[in-house]
C-alpha cells in the first residue's frame, strides 16, 4: 500500500509541491501569518510604519503590474490612491452619519474606495488605452498635478487643501487588552493588502496576465491572435487603479485623514521609484520597493538628526536627501540594472524564479523579506524608431 499523496505539513515547510492557484493561496496565507506574527515583535511606531508599507505595497503592486506587464507607464498613481482615500473617507463619514461604525463601517468604506478608484481608473484607462509611452506618462502627470485644483474647485465635497477627516477606528473590544491601536492598524493593513495582492498575483499568472504580456510585446500581433488589446489595457488600468485605491483607503484608515497635500507629484514619482528599483513587473520587487521608499527617508532623517546640524541646514536636508538618493537610484537602476533588485536576486538565485510571491512585506528588522521575487522581463522587444527615409 502506498501513502496517500495529499499535501502534508512537511511539504509546506520544505519545497512546496503545490502548483497553480492552491500554491499561490498557501504562499499568501503563510506570508500573511508571518507578517501578522511579526507585528508582536515591533514597537508601536514600527507597526505604524508596517501599516504604511502595506498600504504602499497595494499601490506599487498595482503599478508594477501595469507598467511591467502591459507597458503602460503611469506617473499618476498617487492621484488614484487619492481617489481611493477620498472614496473611503466620504463613505466613512456618510456611514458615521447613518450610525454605522466599527468593522462594518470599515468594510463599507473600503467598498466605497474600490468603487471610486475603480471608476477613476476606468475613465483614465479608457483614455490610456489609446496612448502609449510618453503620451500616457504626460496625461497621468497632468492628472496628479491637477489634483489640488480638483479638490479646491469641488471644495464642498473634498474640503480643499484641508482635506477630509474621519472618525477614529479603535481596536475592537475583544482585542483591546491584547494589542495597541498601531498593531491593530498594521493587522488590518496586512490583511487587506494580502487579499488585494493575492488577487493581483492570481490575475498575473493566469489568462489575464498572459494577455497583458501579449499586448505589451506587440500590440498588433496580440490583436491578430484575437486578444482584444484595448479591453485588456483598460482592464489592467482599472485593476491597477483599484489596487492603488485600496492603498489610499488604508492610508486614510491609518491616518484618519485624506488631503491633496499627501498625494503630490513627488509622492507619485516615489511610487514609480519603488516599482523600478524593485524590478518592473515583479510583485516581490513591489514589496521591496515599498519597504525602501518608506524606510529609507526615515533612516536618512534619523541619520541627519543625529549629526546635530544647524537648524537651517537640517531643514534643507530634510526630505531633499532622500529624493536625491531616489533620483540617483532611478537613473542607475534603469541604466545599468534594468531588472531592479528582484531581477538581480533572481539572477543570483535561479530557483527563485519558480516561486510565486504574494503576501505582505515584513519589516527587515526581524526577518529577511519572505516574499521571493519573480522575475519578469520588461519588454525585450526593441522599439527602435524606423528611419523615415522611404515611404
Amino acid at each position, binding site marked *: 500500500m502506498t501513502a496517500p499523496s495529499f499535501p502534508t505539513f512537511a511539504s509546506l515547510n520544505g519545497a512546496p509541491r503545490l502548483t497553480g492557484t492552491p500554491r499561490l493561496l498557501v504562499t499568501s496565507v503563510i506570508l500573511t501569518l508571518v507578517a501578522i506574527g511579526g507585528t508582536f515583535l515591533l514597537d508601536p511606531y514600527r507597526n505604524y510604519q508596517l501599516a504604511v508599507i502595506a498600504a504602499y505595497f497595494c499601490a506599487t503592486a498595482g503599478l508594477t503590474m501595469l507598467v511591467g506587464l502591459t507597458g503602460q507607464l503611469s506617473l499618476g498613481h498617487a492621484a488614484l490612491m487619492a481617489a481611493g482615500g477620498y472614496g473611503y473617507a466620504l463613505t466613512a463619514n456618510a456611514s458615521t452619519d447613518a450610525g454605522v461604525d466599527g468593522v462594518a463601517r470599515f468594510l463599507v468604506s473600503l467598498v466605497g474606495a474600490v468603487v471610486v478608484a475603480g471608476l477613476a481608473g476606468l475613465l483614465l484607462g479608457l483614455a490610456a488605452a489609446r496612448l502609449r509611452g510618453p503620451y500616457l506618462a504626460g496625461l497621468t502627470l497632468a492628472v496628479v498635478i491637477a489634483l489640488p485644483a480638483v479638490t479646491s474647485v469641488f471644495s464642498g465635497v473634498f474640503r480643499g487643501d484641508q482635506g477630509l477627516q474621519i472618525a477614529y477606528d479603535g481596536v475592537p473590544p475583544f482585542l483591546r487588552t491584547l494589542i495597541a491601536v498601531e498593531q491593530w492598524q498594521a493587522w488590518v493593513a496586512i490583511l487587506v493588502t494580502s487579499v488585494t495582492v493575492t488577487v493581483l498575483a492570481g490575475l498575473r499568472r493566469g489568462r489575464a496576465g498572459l494577455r497583458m504580456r501579449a499586448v505589451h510585446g506587440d500590440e498588433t500581433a496580440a490583436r491578430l491572435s484575437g486578444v482584444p488589446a484595448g479591453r485588456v489595457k483598460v482592464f489592467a488600468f482599472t485593476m491597477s487603479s483599484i489596487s492603488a485605491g485600496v492603498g489610499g483607503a488604508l492610508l486614510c484608515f491609518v491616518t484618519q485623514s485624506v488631503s491633496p497635500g499627501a498625494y503630490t507629484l513627488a509622492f507619485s514619482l516615489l511610487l514609480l521609484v519603488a516599482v523600478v528599483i524593485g524590478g518592473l513587473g515583479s510583485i516581490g520587487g513591489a514589496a521591496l520597493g515599498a519597504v525602501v521608499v518608506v524606510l529609507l527617508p526615515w533612516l536618512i532623517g534619523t541619520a541627519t538628526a543625529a549629526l546635530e546640524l544647524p537648524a537651517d541646514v537640517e531643514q534643507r536636508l530634510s526630505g531633499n536627501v532622500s529624493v536625491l538618493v531616489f533620483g540617483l537610484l532611478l537613473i542607475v537602476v534603469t541604466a545599468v540594472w534594468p531588472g531592479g533588485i528582484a531581477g538581480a536576486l533572481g539572477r543570483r538565485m535561479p530557483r527563485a524564479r519558480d516561486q510565486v510571491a504574494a503576501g505582505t512585506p515584513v519589516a527587515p528588522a526581524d526577518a529577511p523579506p519572505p516574499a521571493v521575487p519573480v522575475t519578469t522581463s520588461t519588454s525585450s522587444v526593441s522599439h527602435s524608431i524606423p*528611419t*523615415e*527615409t*522611404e*515611404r
Partner: protein
Amino acid sequence: MSDLLEIDRLVVGYGGAPVLHELSFSIPSGAVVGLLGANGAGKTTLMRAIAGLVAPRSGSVVFDGDVLDDVAVEDRARRGLAQVPEGRSVVAELTVDENLRLGALWRFRGAERERAIDEIYELFEPLARRRSSAGHQLSGGERQMLALGRALIARPRLLLLDEPSLGLAPLVVASILEVLRDTADRTGLTVLLAEQNVTSALSIADRGIVLGLGEIVADAPADTLAADSALRHAYLGF
C-alpha cells in the same frame, strides 16, 4: 595599379552563424566591380561592413592603405568612401536640393558647393526640374538618381552601390548605370556594385565577384563570368 580597397579575412555575423566567412579580396583603384549573388548571399552585409555600419567579428577593411577598424562611419565617408544603401535612402522630409547639399556639406563651401550641386543637376537632368520637391514626392527612378548624385557630389574615391536596379524599369536602370560608368571613366572613381540583376551589372563592370552563402565562389573578368554557363546556372540563376 595599387589596391584602393582590401578586404582581409572578414568575418561578419549577427549573433548566430556568421554571414560572411573569412572573406578576402581587393579592388584596384579605378575598377568597376560587380558584386553578384542570390538574395542572402551576404552582399548587403559586406557593403554595410565596409561602410562601418556593422562591426566585423574579425578581419579588417583596408582603404587606401589604412586599416578602418576604428574609423567611425562618418569619418569613412569623409575619407572618400561613399555608400548608396539598398532602398535608395533619400531623406523623405528634405527637398532634392537639401538632400544634395547634405552630401556636399563636409567637402565644399560657398560657391564651390553651389557649383558641385549644379554639376549633379547636369548629370541627372530630371532632378534639376524637381529641386524643391520633398524626397517623398519623387518617383523610384528619381530617388535612385538623387541617392547616386548625393553620393557622387563629394567626389568619393570608392562608391558602394547596393541594388540600384531594385524595383526600377530596365530603361531607367540602364540610363543610371550608363551615367555611373561614364563618371567612373571620367574621374577614375572606383565602384563596387552589388546586384542581383547580373546582366545589368556585368554590362558595365570590368570584373565580377560572385558570393554564395558568405563565401567567394568566383572572381573573374566580367566577360568570362558572362560566358561561364555552369557558374551562371549554379549561382546567378540565368
